[in-house]
């Protein structure tokens, strides 16, 4: 696993659809281009949702990792 140094960390554990995506969008709006977000969710639907979200918005989904019950996403703002 590549080591990332995130600029922002968003904890969405325990939140259900669509909150992980909505909160990701909100925090990314405050970030500068090129900055990296680390988001953690416990919602299995977030895997597909984050792919759809990044495809639609053009942000870069660098990696998505499954660890225990957690789903970790690294997204770069473009």
């Amino acid at each position, binding site marked *: 696993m590549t080591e990332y140094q995130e600029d922002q960390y968003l904890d969405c554990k*325990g*939140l*259900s*659809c*669509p*909150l992980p*995506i*909505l909160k*990701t*969008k*909100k925090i990314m709006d405050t970030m500068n281009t090129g900055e990296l977000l680390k988001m953690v969710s416990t919602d299995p639907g977030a895997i597909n949702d984050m792919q*759809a*979200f990044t495809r*639609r*918005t053009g942000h870069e989904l660098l990696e998505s990792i499954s660890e225990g019950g957690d789903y970790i996403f690294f997204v770069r703002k473009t």
Partner: protein
Amino acid sequence: MSETDNQRKRMALIASKGTLDWAYPPFILASTAAAMDMEVGIFFTFYGLTLLKKKLDAKVAPHTNPAMPMKMPFGPAGFQNIEWPMPNIIMGNVPGFETMATSLMKKTFKNKGVATIEELRDICIESNVKLIGCQMTMDVFGFSKDDFIEGIDVAGAATFLEFAAESDIQLFI
């Protein structure tokens, strides 16, 4: 806005129902579509218009929803998994059943980390989702603009249909 507006997807929703369970789909779809950079407009008509009231008071009606799974949102795990068979004669005749069912549903959603309708509506407003109240419904049910939250438009069918005709996604809820 940006010069790529002609490539931006647009979604038109009609929200015609005002119970708690039916309040979720339009606000979830709209907030998520807005998060995905789509332009969204929701036309609130008939009972859906109550979703624009300043104080949201949406209830759930179990006796008209035979497919609703009745599980208790408290107690040990085994207990929470029981689906309670609820005969219509109880659901339709016990006073306060609807209020109790609404409380239980809200508790269930809170346990599972689901946003409240108020939160979702606020996110829609922040994300510039167009909220449009149906003029005719307002007249028929005797609502005034003061009953509703700030920032809504009021329009008729033709106005909304023009918006919907230029949309990529059109849904009736």
